[in-house]
């Protein structure tokens, strides 16, 4: 209902979905302070596929956590759909995590005691949906990610790629506006990773969901609308896909 209030989709309709202003994150370790983010200001528009690229330890996950409302920045602001995340109370934050954002993790993070179906239904149940409706919808989404035949399997009975598909289905369960993925292909082999990336891109186009993926997987370059290159806690440069392909070629 919120989405309908604004003209969506068109190339001109550059509707902001995420904006960070001068986000700084410091970790204190003993008497030393480590600045994991040194003032990051980025704007992300609805429906975009963004990759946050950078070497290990550059601050991708830290930025992911800040955007996802999982961790408070030391200073600076994060707006999600024009809402200042710092202003939200615990119940509103839980609602935001449940309904507005879908998370995908490197380690899949399925609930081990639950079947694929129950895993996908869980965020809907947390959101207040009736059990039966949640199961029906979970089944549909699992069919969409081509796991219709494995719905009653526990995570331990699924391959890594299959687990990540379940995780993707779960992330999409409440029709979020944003999908946040931290190294979604980090624990997968080349081909499985490719398939997961393709699936994310399809879902992004099919549902108009904004996908933000922290990664150092260069396979992501081809499908990203924009790439944020991050190094030592700073955004080094922001490139559109067409600007990137040449660079990527040089990297090989």
């Amino acid at each position, binding site marked *: 209902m919120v989405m309908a209030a*604004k003209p969506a989709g068109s190339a001109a309709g550059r509707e902001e979905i995420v904006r960070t202003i001068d986000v700084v994150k410091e970790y204190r370790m003993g008497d030393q302070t480590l600045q994991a983010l040194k003032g990051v200001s980025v704007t992300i528009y609805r429906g975009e596929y963004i990759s946050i690229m950078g070497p290990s330890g550059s601050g991708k996950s830290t930025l992911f956590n800040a955007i996802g409302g*999982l961790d408070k920045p030391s200073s600076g602001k994060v707006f999600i759909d024009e809402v200042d995340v710092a202003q939200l109370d615990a*119940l509103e934050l*839980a609602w935001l*995590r449940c309904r507005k954002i879908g*998370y995908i993790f490197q380690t899949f993070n399925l*609930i081990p*005691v639950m079947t694929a179906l129950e895993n996908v239904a869980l*965020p809907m*149940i947390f959101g207040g949906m009736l059990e039966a409706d949640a199961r029906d919808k979970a089944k549909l989404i699992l069919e969409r990610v081509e796991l219709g035949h494995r719905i009653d399997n526990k995570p331990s009975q699924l391959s890594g790629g299959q687990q990540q598909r379940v995780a993707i289905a779960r992330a999409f369960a409440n029709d979020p506006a944003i999908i946040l993925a931290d190294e979604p292909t980090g624990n997968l082999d080349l081909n499985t990773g490719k398939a997961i990336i393709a699936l994310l891109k399809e879902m992004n186009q099919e549902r108009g969901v904004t996908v933000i993926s922290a990664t150092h997987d260069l396979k992501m370059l081809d499908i990203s609308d924009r790439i944020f290159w991050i190094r030592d806690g700073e955004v080094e440069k922001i490139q559109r896909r067409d600007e990137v392909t040449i660079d990527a070629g040089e990297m090989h």
Partner: protein
Amino acid sequence: MSKSGSGAVGSGQVQRQVQLPLSKAVEIALKSMRVRMGRSILTLITIVMAMAFLTEVWLSNRLGPVIRTELLAREHLKAHGPSVDGSRLVWLISLSLLVCLVGISNAMLMSVMERFREIGTMKCLGALDSFILKLFVLESIFLGVAGTICGIVLGVVLAVGIMVARYSTAAWPLIPWGGVPWICLAALGIGTAITAAAAMYPAWKAARMEPIAAMRVEV
């Protein structure tokens, strides 16, 4: 209703997360226990032993003197068997309950720490602190009740067995069964209370865990 597009601080866009019915927490707690059977059984054994000890000591403390005086009156035996030292017994029982409390608390705490990723993930999916709290308190109470019941049964069997072994089967008809249910009921109350108390700190730890725990890679 939807007043978006104003560019203001997104009023009305964010709602508050709803509370889940208790039945959902019960369902997930039971599932977790079933799947982690090994751990559950270990915790269960702690509770069973402590409660069996409590019940046995309590029963023989009550039954022993009754039987002994009966038998003495019938001159079946000389006055032997340990004389019961009340304060030492209270001390022993307290100690066993304390061990039980610490044992359960420790087992629950380990279970919470092991499940950091699961708890963090649930928080990312929209679980409230109160839901996580309920999950762990319920898990502990289920274990507590089950363990206490088994412990009581074991305790009664032991108490009667020891009595019979000590005074021969002549003791059997002399056992005052009327008092036994009350002692069992009291033991059930104590066992449940102890497990609930033992779960408080671990459950609180779990509830307070940040969603970011979902991202942690190391154990």
